[in-house]
């Protein structure tokens, strides 16, 4: 069948693109063409992409304003670090453990809070994110506020790349399915969705759990790159950072979340010498975006294969 052939050609082309992208970066890392400085920023960028895309599933596609994403990142980071440093698990197991632990935390927090709407949900998730942090500060097993240091640097480019691809694959495939439409219908009109047979609570929780799980994965990758994790790293300002990326990218656009994550990473790196003005600049950017482009960079549009096709002048 003709269309089937096109489909497979496309999948092969995309796979080839990913392999080339991965190999090029891997080559420049192995040959030290990419300096330490750029490697660190590349790592932050990948982690930020995972965080932004996972939060966009909750805030952008499901329309549930969550301000506790850093809390789930913390759960993942601590779970993975405990598994590798204290329990001697291999890194892959720690990553999977982080994903599931944060997803479970998302479930436990999501079930009671997702009944709340709008501002109430925002406040509840903000509070619960902070509670996770404060609890970690008071657990001696993980050294309280001092955190865990001397974490082996297990996060390589391959793991980062795999993490980003997996996150995108899960979120994009979910969103573009009947389950994804159910999730989006919750954002569009919760009552109408419910009356059309959508169990809105179930899909809010589903999106929340998946989003939280990938925040956990990001936390695990973070902990095993930056040597140290402390509760303070995962405070509400971190949640706010992630939210800025999602809003900037456009609520309901994965592409937008990726672009905004890249942009914010570069901006943060550029503002490294002046950390105190970073927040001011964030706020200014947000205000400007809200005034001139309230729907975010991408609105709810995606930069899809179709768009690419149109740019190349081809037609599908």
């Amino acid at each position, binding site marked *: 069948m003709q269309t089937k052939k096109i489909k497979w050609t496309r999948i092969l082309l995309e796979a080839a693109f990913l392999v080339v992208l991965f190999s090029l970066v891997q080559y420049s890392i192995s040959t030290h063409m990419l300096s330490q400085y750029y490697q660190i920023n590349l790592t932050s960028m990948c982690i930020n992409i995972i965080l932004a895309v996972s939060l966009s599933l909750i805030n952008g596609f499901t329309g549930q304003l969550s301000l506790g994403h850093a809390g789930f990142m913390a759960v993942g980071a601590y779970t993975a670090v405990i598994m590798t440093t204290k329990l001697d698990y291999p890194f892959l197991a720690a990553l999977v453990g982080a994903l599931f632990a944060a997803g479970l935390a998302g479930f436990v927090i999501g079930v009671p809070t997702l009944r709340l709407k709008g501002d109430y949900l925002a406040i509840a998730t903000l509070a619960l994110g902070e509670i996770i942090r404060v609890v970690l500060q008071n657990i001696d097993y993980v050294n309280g506020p001092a955190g865990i240091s001397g974490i082996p640097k297990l996060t390589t480019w391959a793991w980062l790349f795999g993490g980003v691809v997996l996150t995108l694959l899960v979120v994009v*495939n979910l969103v573009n399915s009947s*389950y994804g*439409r159910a999730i989006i*219908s919750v954002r569009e009109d919760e009552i109408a969705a*419910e*009356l059309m*047979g959508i169990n809105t609570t179930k899909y809010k929780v589903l999106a929340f759990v998946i989003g939280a799980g990938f925040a956990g994965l990001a936390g695990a990758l973070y902990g095993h790159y930056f040597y140290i994790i402390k509760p303070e790293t995962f405070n509400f300002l971190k949640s706010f950072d992630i939210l800025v990326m999602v809003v900037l990218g456009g609520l309901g656009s994965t592409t937008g979340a990726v672009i905004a994550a890249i942009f914010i990473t570069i901006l943060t790196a550029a503002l490294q010498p002046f950390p105190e003005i970073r927040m001011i600049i964030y706020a200014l950017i947000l205000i400007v975006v809200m005034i001139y482009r309230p729907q975010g960079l991408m609105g709810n549009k995606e930069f899809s294969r179709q768009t690419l096709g149109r740019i190349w002048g081809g037609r599908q």
Partner: protein
Amino acid sequence: MTMLTINKLHKAFGGLSAVMNFNFQMEQDELVGLIGPNGAGKTTVFNLITGVYKPDQGQIIFEGQNLVGMAPYSICAQGVARTFQNIRLFNELSVLDNVKIACHKNVQYSVLGALMRTPAFFKGEAKIEQDALKFLEVFKLENKRDELAKNLPYGEQRRLEISRALATQPRLLILDEPAAGMNPQETNSLMKLIEMIRREFGLAVLLIEHDMSLVMGVCERIYVLDYGLIIAKGLPQEIRNYTQVIEAYLGEELN
């Protein structure tokens, strides 16, 4: 066979009793009208049946099952679907997606299947698309499949809402003022369409309508509600002659 029986339904908002001692019966393939002046409690009855509100008292028995206390999505799963007095489409989504969402309750693949893009996923998606298009065709909206719902003209939005409700494959279809805001010509063709889908899909239809000629023309039986109370019920010609109705409702229209 009796499809829907409502016993002693009561609902108050604060001090205001919106629906009082509401008793109602409907057969399997009937087309019943619910009329009454603004604020009489008609929409509230619909909200009670579909689970948007919980009644203070009373029973709503649909095909032998009490709907009271069920979540709206379960009531939909039981086979009751509705439209809204103020249209509630998924505005930012395409016409086709609006209907596809209503098809979701019969989705034939799992979340994992969606994530892994299994053959079941592609088959299930093809089926959903085929079903959704079928319901759009009933209302001649298939050419508008890719337009955003909010960009449709008013009359088409109303029709899209009905086709979306049909896509949940109900046995009872509840329409809240389906012809509101339509001109007489549009209203007329809508009524023919309602007759047609009722026969075609074997549905019972319960509708609220303001346009009296329309209600009289199409409904087999009519309930009249005023200040939360049923003040009359019967065949259209019986209702027409009922003085209380004329005072409460028709008079208002005629004067």
